[in-house]
């Protein structure tokens, strides 16, 4: 190869990825996420355990509704233990790790996430037989004036820690009941321009969430900055009798938006809701 051609070729290689609009790829998964979260595990790409719903076009990259639906009800013999969610191309791809129980009734989960750019969203499920399966959806984050931040962080900050449960009317004893948990929190990403140092660059987000019904676990989650401001979760639990649905969570502040090595614990919050089927 002649040298000039070689240089052009190299330059073209550097430019091409920015121009090509690929419908997702497994690069981040293969090079980072798989070994970081599932080293040594065999993961089957399949829709037999869970389905993943996400809009092809993220209308607002700060609030992208995502839904994982399980293909079977939770039972002592067969249940989904954990679901992981990732947005491959986000600066911090890990969205969360959600632990379910036979008592959860149904391992369905709907939530809102931040999607920084065109990316696959990826869900991995582990069933109680120790098997892993994965499904993914490509999402085009909207451009224009949108940013994956949140429109009014001061409002979210003002009511920080406020919690709401919403349940459908007419829930039946012993049947999985859908509930919505809303937490007011700005879930700051800490992604800010360096030179404007008069602003705090720290992230500030909810990192642990535990939901119980009459002290029995319903959902345990480890979550991160890809969760939209004012975190919002829909999931199931089984109200076998009247009782107390309870959400407990903590927040944390980390020095770097993309590393969790240096973090300071924040507050602990708890909110209960009386359920009478």
């Amino acid at each position, binding site marked *: 190869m002649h040298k000039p051609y070689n240089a052009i070729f190299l330059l073209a290689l550097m430019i091409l990825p*920015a121009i090509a609009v690929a419908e997702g790829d497994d690069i981040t998964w293969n090079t980072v996420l798989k070994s970081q979260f599932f080293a040594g595990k065999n993961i089957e790409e399949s829709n037999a355990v869970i389905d993943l719903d996400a809009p092809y076009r993220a209308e607002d990259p700060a*609030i992208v509704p995502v839904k994982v639906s399980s293909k079977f009800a939770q039972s002592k013999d067969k249940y989904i233990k954990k679901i992981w969610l990732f947005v491959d191309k986000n600066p911090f791809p890990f969205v969360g790790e959600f632990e379910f129980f036979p008592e959860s009734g149904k391992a369905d989960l709907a939530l809102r996430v931040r999607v920084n750019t065109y990316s696959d969203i990826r869900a991995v499920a582990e069933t109680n037989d120790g098997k892993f399966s994965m499904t993914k959806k490509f999402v085009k984050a909207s451009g224009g*004036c949108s940013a994956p931040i949140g429109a009014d962080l001061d409002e979210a900050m003002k009511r920080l820690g406020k919690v709401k449960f919403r349940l459908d009317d007419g829930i039946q004893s012993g049947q999985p009941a859908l509930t919505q948990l809303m937490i007011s929190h700005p879930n700051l990403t800490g992604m800010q321009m360096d030179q404007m140092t008069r602003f705090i660059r720290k992230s500030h987000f909810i990192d642990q969430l535990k939901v119980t019904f009459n002290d029995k676990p319903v959902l345990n989650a480890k979550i991160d900055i890809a969760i939209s401001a004012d975190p919002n979760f829909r999931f199931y639990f089984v109200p076998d009798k009247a009782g107390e649905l309870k959400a407990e969570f903590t927040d944390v502040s980390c020095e770097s938006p993309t590393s969790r090595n240096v973090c300071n614990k924040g507050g602990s919050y708890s909110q209960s809701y009386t359920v009478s089927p």
Partner: protein
Amino acid sequence: MKFVLLIMGLLTSYSSMAAPPLSFSQVAPGIYLHTSAHHWPDRDNHGEIANIGFIVGERCVAVIDSGGSPQQGAALRNTIRQVTAKPVCYVINTHVHPDHIYGNIAFKEPGVQFVGHHKLARAMATRGDHYLGRAAELLDIQVNHDNIIPPDIEVNDSMTLNIGNRELVLTAHPSAHTDNDLSVYDKTTETIWLADLLFLEHIPVIDGSIKGWLSEIERLEKNHYKLVVPGHGHLVKDWPASLQPQKAYLNSLATEVRAMIKQGKTLEQAVNTVGLPAKKNWQLFEQFHRKNVTIAFAELEWED
């Protein structure tokens, strides 16, 4: 061969071209306005999609929104030089959106002060990297951290700038179109530059607070203005009549979203059903309406 063509394409890309002339009209004595057609920001229009302009005083010139690209900022600067020998003393950024601030760099020189809402710098800091990171790909423009210029003068509530026997009253609004909207009122001609607090033809875009915007609309509606400059759309001479389509759109959006929240419906359901008949009234409806529903829903579900 393919690669060679690609390099040629790169060499003739927008950033290396001279700034094309901008059309301006003097809409009132000393007020010059460039109105843009309505487009989704892309590689063809380089994000030059907002109304921009300037006001000439006896001492100096105040720029109001510098344009959607460094090139448009340069073209604006050239236009000002053709109109007047007076120097630019203020660049007023009405809010953080790239179509209003990417021309700032063309005015960065001693004697020029940048002016914005007290929350503008924070919005620039939190959104800047995201905007910059996608500009080359989406807009075909070259921008970096130097193009994000935070205000030297921050407006907390209200402030008056004198540009030489001409007073401009700046108002920092509560969260509405964004959380950093600033309007400019020219006392001399009773003109208010509302920028993106007012959209005509182009669907209103919510990136702040629908409740806040509606209450600002109610407040502004009561005022008397001879001329109103929207951020997107034609010059308004019949205030508040021209405000009504935007008011009606936001009002019915809020009403419908509140009803869905009350019925226990989800954000996904709202996005797929709310307000779709309004499509016939607005340009760029497909690009922004569902985003508006999303933001409105996320805000209004915390109301009670």
